[in-house]
Structures are given as structure tokens and as C-alpha cells.
């Protein structure tokens, strides 16, 4: 098997617990609502198409949140986000990330965990005196999300390969825009701190691009990435981008390990 075949097999033959995708499904909906809940209220557009689109948006995302007909709900929600991005022209990258992550969820069995679908399946199994259905399936969508995260970091680093960014000058600009009035420049070593922040963020993102693709680095790069995104989330107006990235780290973690950890947290497994 050559490396291309191994890569394809890594993508399409990944089977495991559906809990990660179930959690991502629920988390994504809350991020989508946090971003568009207000803007998508039906009262915002009373013209027929816009009004019906908004009703459909809430129906689809609500079904996605509770996990009712989950794949269809994810597909419908992804279509809504695609409309918001392509048709309505809300084109910042945090919107695209919500769209692509939701689209990838269609290719996961996210409805087999934490969902109405699961509840209905359990009831059916009970009626037929069968064991509970397994929370398990093909996780191609999680692999695609992993690839998307690696790509985001790679191109983010590429975008930072300018002297102005690497030397921290662009970071000074950001502080001047959002923290003007604090007179940060008077702080001794301000330029050095910006250099460390600018150059350091590029190095960290390069590490994330590589580290997310190599499982043995996950224990280091995932906590580093979470801290990195939380700091950015608190310092700058990045909307849902940082939180979405953190949520999507669930796709990078081995699905069965996440499943095991949840069991362990709930006292259903005693030893590691």
C-alpha cells in the first residue's frame, strides 16, 4: 500500500464512536445560533423567500441541535449556512468554517449519540427486546474536518509570511485599532512583546498544522491550540471562529478515546 492509498484509507476507513460527532453537532448549532440567531429572525425579512428561508433555517438547526433525522438536519443546516455565505454574502472566514464543518458532519453518524434519533433507536430496540444500538459508524466527516483544520493553519501561516507580521508590526496595528487609548507603546519592551506575539503566533500555527496531522503530538498541540484560540477570542473580535476551532479539535482526537473518556467521567469505567 503506497502512501496515497494509506492516506485515503485513513480517511474513508475510519470507524469509531459517534460521540465526538454528536458533541460537535450540538456545539456547532449553538455557535451558529450565537452568530446568526438574531440576524436570522423571521421578522428581519418579511419578503416571502427570506421569511420562509428563516423559518427553514430555524427548523433545520433545531433538528440538528436535538439530533432528529440528524444527517438530513445537518445537510439542511449546511445548505442554510451556504446560502448565508454565498447568497446573502456574509463572507468572513468564521461563517465559512461553520458552513464547512456542518457540511462535513453530514458524513458522520452524529445522530447515533446524544440525539432524538438515539432515543428513538433505543425505544425501538427495547420494544424488540434487542440490545441498545451501538454508538458507532464511519467517521469520514471527522477526517475531513481534521484536514480542514490542518489546511487552515497552513494557509494562515502562509498569510503571515510577511516581515510586518513576523516582526510584530501587524500585531501593533491590531492593538492600535482595538486598544487605542491605553498608550501601550509606553510600556517598556512593547515592540519586543509584539514581535514575540507576531512571530510566536506564526510558529505556533505552523506547529498546529503539523501537530494536528501527527497523533503523537496531539497531547501537546491541542492544549496549546485551545489556549491560543481562547486568548485570541478574548483579545480580538473574531466572532465564533476561535470557539469553532476549539470545538473542532474533537474531530482530531481519536473518537474511541473520547467515548472512553466520557464513560470514565460518568463512572462507567474504573481504570485507564
Amino acid at each position, binding site marked *: 500500500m503506497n502512501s496515497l492509498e494509506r492516506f485515503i484509507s485513513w*480517511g*474513508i476507513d475510519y470507524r469509531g464512536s459517534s460521540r465526538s460527532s454528536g458533541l460537535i453537532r450540538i456545539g456547532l448549532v449553538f455557535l451558529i445560533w450565537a452568530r446568526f440567531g438574531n440576524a436570522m429572525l423571521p421578522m428581519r425579512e418579511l419578503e416571502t423567500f427570506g421569511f420562509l428561508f428563516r423559518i427553514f433555517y430555524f427548523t433545520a438547526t433545531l433538528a440538528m441541535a436535538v439530533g432528529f433525522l440528524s444527517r438530513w438536519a445537518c445537510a439542511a443546516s449546511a445548505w442554510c449556512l451556504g446560502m448565508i*455565505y*454565498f447568497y446573502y454574502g456574509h463572507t468572513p472566514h468564521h461563517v465559512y468554517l461553520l458552513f464547512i464543518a456542518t457540511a462535513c458532519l453530514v458524513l458522520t453518524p452524529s445522530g447515533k449519540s446524544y440525539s432524538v434519533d438515539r432515543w428513538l433507536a433505543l425505544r425501538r430496540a427495547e420494544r424488540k427486546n434487542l440490545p441498545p444500538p451501538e454508538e458507532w459508524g464511519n467517521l*469520514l466527516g471527522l*477526517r475531513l474536518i481534521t484536514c480542514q483544520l490542518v*489546511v487552515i493553519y497552513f494557509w494562515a501561516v502562509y*498569510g503571515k509570511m510577511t516581515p510586518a507580521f513576523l516582526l510584530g*508590526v501587524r500585531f501593533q496595528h491590531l492593538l492600535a485599532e*482595538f486598544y487605542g487609548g491605553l498608550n501601550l507603546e509606553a510600556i517598556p519592551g512593547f515592540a519586543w512583546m509584539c514581535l514575540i506575539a507576531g512571530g510566536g503566533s506564526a510558529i505556533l500555527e505552523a506547529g498546529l498544522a503539523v501537530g494536528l496531522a501527527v497523533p503523537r503530538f496531539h497531547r501537546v498541540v491541542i492544549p496549546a491550540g485551545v489556549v491560543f484560540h481562547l486568548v485570541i477570542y478574548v483579545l480580538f473580535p473574531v466572532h465564533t471562529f476561535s470557539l469553532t476551532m476549539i470545538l473542532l479539535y474533537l474531530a482530531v482526537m481519536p473518537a474511541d478515546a473520547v467515548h472512553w473518556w466520557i464513560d470514565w467521567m460518568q463512572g462507567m469505567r474504573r481504570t485507564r
Partner: protein
Amino acid sequence: MRNLRGALFLAVVLFMAFGPAYQQVFRRECRALRAWVMFEGYGLNIWQVRFRIERPDGSGEEVKWMALLGYADGRKAPADLRKITQIGQTFAIAKEVRKRLPAEDKLFMSARVSGEDGWTEIYRDYSISADFFPAR
């Protein structure tokens, strides 16, 4: 079926991986081929202004212009002083600073503006004389 899944997977990954090159390498616009440039457009066209005075006795110093305008705590200054986005604002500030200084003091303004390539210095020690702003 498996081959089809593999081909589709590979196609999507290639789209994800190389799509951004369309904008980031070839500098063309396309919504579907998403670029991943962080903070694009933020922090641009922000002006920073500094003032320096020279007194007749030869002494000189940097002017803490926000304090001079009544905002010792810069956080309490109006938004258009905390974030200067137009060249006209720098001269509006210079006018107010000039008014508050003795006419015999020489006032010099330096101003720079932020851009993708860094700071661009627009004025260095630009003299703002007492009659620079004619009285109306």
C-alpha cells in the same frame, strides 16, 4: 463503491488544500475558494501621531497630547482620539494642541499610518507654527 468514496475524499481534500492558493497565491477573488488570512483588513489605516516642542531656550520635550487635551487617562478619551483613521484627524488634533501651547514654543508633529507592509511615516517633525491654522 470504495474507490468512488476514496476518489471523492481525495477530491474534497485537494479542494480544501489547494483552494486557498487561488486567492492567497494568485491574488484572485472567489468566495468558493476560501482564503485563510487571519485579521485581514484589521488594523489598517490607523494613524499614530506624536508631538514634540522646542522652547525658545533650546529645551524641548515630547508632548503628552492626550493629557494636554484633557484626557490624562487615554481610556476616557473620545473614540476619534483613541483611534485615528484619517489624516484630517491628525491635523485636528494638532490644531487643538497648538492652541494650548505658548505661541513662542515650536511644535513639531510626526505621524505614521498602518498598512499591510507595516508603518509608513507620513510626517516627521512637521512644523506646526502658531499661525499654521489661521484664525477665522
